[in-house]
């Protein structure tokens, strides 16, 4: 077991290193630099001072080693666009906002999605199934920006019940949560439906019925437990999505989350900010995968045993 964990962590570090390196060189190969937008108006001397400050006058490989050295010490550098703010503090400031909106959306969306999926599986080929599948297809096909504008138009402009955008009060979260959660509802409804239909066909469900268990107990104890397992896999990437924020949604509702900053830093060639956020995303993703694998082991005895050997 310990050997397995160490092995996994080594792989994790290797992946992170690769991601950081590739991002570094990709970023630098984009034409332009942080000063590109105002370069024409700035005096030559100011530019040179600027480059020198961020080490951009150095050869690329030196910059690379310097960056990597910082990374080892968990120092992601200073934002170029917002002088004086470190990338780490920016991430620490913006990611909880994304986490709050996305987390709420994920929890509510997953719960509703699982319930709808169950209903669809249990009422297969009857009207509840068709309704759920219709919702699921809508959720999977309607682009977020369409749904977001629709919500803003209906609930903010026409009905005036909710603010169209902004941040600060709980009421600001309602629309973004609906927009973000809708995707989860669609994904989980479809996933749970097919997974439950599969489980319902298993003999051990019949065994449970033969034991005399009530239908409720059969569904909750045997069918649902076994059907949720595959959903754990997609849940991991969903969790990452929560922290990385939804770029479009955050932009449309003016939510000061990490997604909003990520987009603006890419637009402004804020090298350190882009690098930092990307590494943060990658680390989060890899850690989540590790967590999911462990959760899987707890949930599924078959995997637990296999990895022991």
């Amino acid at each position, binding site marked *: 077991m310990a050997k397995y964990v160490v092995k996994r962590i080594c792989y994790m570090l290797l992946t992170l290193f690769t991601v950081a390196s590739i991002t570094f060189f990709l970023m630098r190969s984009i034409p332009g630099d942080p000063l590109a937008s105002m370069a024409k108006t700035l005096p030559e001397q100011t530019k040179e001072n600027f480059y020198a400050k961020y080490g951009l006058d150095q050869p690329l490989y030196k910059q690379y080693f310097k960056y990597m050295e910082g990374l080892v010490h968990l120092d992601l550098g200073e934002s170029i666009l917002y002088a004086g703010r470190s990338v780490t503090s920016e991430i620490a400031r913006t990611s909880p906002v994304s986490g709050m909106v996305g987390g709420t959306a994920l929890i509510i969306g997953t719960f509703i999605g699982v319930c709808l999926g169950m209903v669809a599986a249990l009422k297969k080929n009857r009207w509840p199934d068709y309704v759920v599948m219709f919702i699921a297809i809508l959720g999977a096909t309607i682009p977020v920006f369409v749904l977001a504008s629709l919500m803003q138009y209906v609930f903010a402009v026409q009905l005036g019940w909710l603010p169209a955008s902004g941040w600060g009060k709980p009421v600001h979260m309602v629309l973004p949560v609906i927009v973000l959660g809708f995707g989860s509802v669609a994904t989980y409804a479809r996933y749970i439906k097919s997974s439950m239909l599969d489980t319902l066909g298993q*003999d051990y469900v019949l*065994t449970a019925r033969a034991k005399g268990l009530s239908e409720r107990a059969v569904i909750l104890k045997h069918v649902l437990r076994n059907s949720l397992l595959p959903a754990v896999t997609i849940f991991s990437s969903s969790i990452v999505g929560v922290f990385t924020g939804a770029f479009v949604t955050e932009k449309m509702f003016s939510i000061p989350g990490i997604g909003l900053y990520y987009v603006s830093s890419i637009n402004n060639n804020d090298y350190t900010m882009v690098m930092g956020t990307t590494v943060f995303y990658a680390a989060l993703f890899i850690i989540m995968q590790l967590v999911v694998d462990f959760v899987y082991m707890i949930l599924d005895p078959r995997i637990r045993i296999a990895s022991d050997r």
Partner: protein
Amino acid sequence: MNNQLIEVKDLCKYFPAGKGNTLKAVDHVNLTINRGETLGLVGESGCGKTTCGRTILKLYQPTAGQVIFDGKDISGLKGKELLKFKKRAQIIFQDPYSSLDPRMTIGEIIAEGMDVHCNYNKKERDAKVAELLNSVGMKEDYANRFAHELSGGQRQRVGIARALAVDPDFIVCDEPISALDVSIQAQVVNLLIKLQRERGLTYLFISHDLSMVRHISDRVGVMYLGSLVEMTGSGEIFAHPLHPYTKVLMSAIPVADPEANGSEEELEIKGEVPSPVHAPSGCKFRTRCSYATDICAQEVPELREVTEGHFVACHHCGESGEQQKNA
């Protein structure tokens, strides 16, 4: 006390087969099972043996007909009464790999039925699980293992222990050995026989393995396309099969020394089994039967008692079963 534990009357189970068709998996089956005996049910794959067994246990809701268990019609039972019946009638499934919940330990699987039907405290419960495991020839420490850690034979023993957990009177053994390795089959069958003697169990033993059915059964029923075509004592059916289909089945049993048995020719059967969705009119076997005449297409043959305790559903097996031989 009535000697019959189970009486099945005109039991039907139809499934919708799409496009307005129905699949008649079990079609007017009549049979009785006496206390303490084993009734073997044989037939080809897809002939409705399993559906028949499951419908008798009310795992499937019958389309029509009655199942009388210990003098009581169980078709309409609900709630507590149904629960009582489920305690007394259990099933052992064919596939020991998929019939055990992969997320539960063996102990939990065995004890789950007891939790529903019996009020044991934790100590009694654990003791009972250990006793059941022992009685199927396994050590009690298997209770903490998971199904995937066991071999097929061990799993099937767990399946048996699970069925026994609620002290049933009647067990449907639904092809309990067909998924097992040949070397394990005999062990499991002998275990079933031993448990029957010890606990006075009544079995409905569903199988397509004729030799095994002969070994374990007191009486044997033969099914073809959802209907029972012949039913009689186990010795009788192997020695004097009357229905043309049964004859073909029996001639297909491999014998240890074919040379010594030279007189017995192997009968051939023509064609394929028709689809149960479009079963032939009248006698379902007529399309493949060499004795078929007009009446076979028009009338469904009733299951008649031809000699004592020997029931056949065939228009041409009149009072004397020898008739065909001369024909």
